[in-house]
């Protein structure tokens, strides 16, 4: 007959094994994308320009091209801290992290698209995987203030944040997903993909149809700037940064389907009005890239498109580097600089 002691010893071995697994996951994910961005911030302490945003910025902003356009020289040039699949909360945490590492930039470039500036931070614990795992290890109690987690999720967050197996599970699962995609591709025509995933998948991030997008524009007219965006602007201001809010380039096909309507214009006007309370420069770069072939997928700029965008942004922001920040709306379609 088996004994309690034997069962307990098996359980202890399991607990030990779980501890070892946590250490293994921590080791395997030490080079995850958020950690690489953090390392980039640590290694760029002399940078004078910091770019923040999601994958549109990560793929669309070229440091060296921007530096050339603004006569900057490394290491005092620009640093791209764009992080794919991130939200303003993670972007705020990265800015604070960079400042805490001793970076003293003069200008923060914040690239955004769609309703990013006004989306409320309602998430569940299931959303906080992948690159958003950084919420578990960069100032978790600070970052959590900006998420409205349910009571159940808040308890889970607090209990599990210290375990790499939980926090970095997305990075491990991504490897399995890549295996699945490789298996699934066998016997079928090759799909286009880039560093972020399958190109066709990014259409899933678009609105279902024009109607849905128009409704979203209307609903967002009553939304204030999200708490994370407001805090990011406050932190940047306090650190003496000039701030440029950049509406990122979009494909012309995308623009024609969704954005060439009064609802979107009203929303953009609403955002500008909200930003007027802050010392920011607003840059409308949404129409800067006219050739859709310069996009790698429905959302992200390819190599050439990124260079063109970075060069033009450098040109637009040259003067911001040396002046006191003031609210100026630049680059309306039809004004100078627009083809």
């Amino acid at each position, binding site marked *: 007959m088996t004994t309690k002691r034997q069962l307990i010893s*098996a359980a202890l071995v399991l607990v030990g*094994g779980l501890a070892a*697994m946590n250490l293994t996951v921590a080791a395997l994910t030490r080079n995850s*994308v958020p950690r690489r961005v953090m390392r980039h911030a640590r290694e760029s302490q002399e940078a004078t320009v910091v770019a923040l945003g999601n994958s549109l910025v990560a793929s669309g902003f070229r440091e060296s091209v921007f530096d050339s356009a603004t006569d900057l020289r490394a290491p005092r040039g620009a640093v791209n801290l764009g992080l794919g699949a991130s939200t303003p909360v993670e972007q705020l945490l990265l800015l604070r992290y960079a400042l805490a590492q001793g970076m003293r930039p003069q200008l923060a470039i914040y690239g955004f698209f769609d309703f990013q500036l006004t989306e409320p931070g309602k998430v569940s614990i*299931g959303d906080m995987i*992948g690159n958003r795992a950084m919420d578990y290890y960069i100032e978790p109690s600070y970052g959590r203030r900006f998420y409205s987690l349910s009571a159940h999720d808040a308890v889970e967050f607090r209990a599990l944040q210290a375990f790499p197996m939980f926090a970095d599970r997305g990075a491990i699962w*991504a490897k399995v*997903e*890549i295996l699945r995609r490789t298996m699934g591709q066998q016997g079928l025509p090759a799909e286009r993909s880039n560093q972020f995933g399958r190109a066709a998948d990014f259409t899933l*991030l678009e609105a279902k149809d024009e109607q849905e997008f128009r409704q979203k524009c209307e609903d967002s007219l009553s939304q204030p700037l999200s708490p994370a965006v407001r805090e990011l602007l406050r932190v940047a201001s306090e650190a003496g940064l000039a701030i440029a809010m950049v509406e990122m380039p979009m494909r012309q096909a995308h623009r024609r389907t969704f954005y060439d309507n009064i609802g979107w214009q009203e929303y953009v006007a609403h955002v500008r009005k909200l930003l007027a309370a802050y010392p920011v420069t607003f840059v409308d770069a949404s129409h800067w890239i006219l050739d859709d072939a310069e996009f790698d997928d429905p959302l992200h700029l390819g190599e050439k498109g990124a260079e063109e965008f970075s060069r033009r942004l450098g040109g637009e922001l040259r003067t911001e580097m040396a002046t006191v920040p003031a609210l100026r709306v630049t680059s309306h379609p039809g004004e100078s600089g627009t083809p």
Partner: protein
Amino acid sequence: MTGMFRIPYLQRVMEYLAGEIDAPPEGFPVALTNFQFWGLWWCILVGVIYIFSGQSSKFIYIDF
């Protein structure tokens, strides 16, 4: 031919490891029936579950 006769044994081994039968098949190493082994086996199963349990997550971005 010998392999075919081994299949029933392998089946019993898998059933024992999966918790389906209580007693190990004859010829099963006694050292692998102690509870430390079961703790290790549980670790392996938990590890497998952990690695593969994210497949219901909808991945759009895969750059982690």
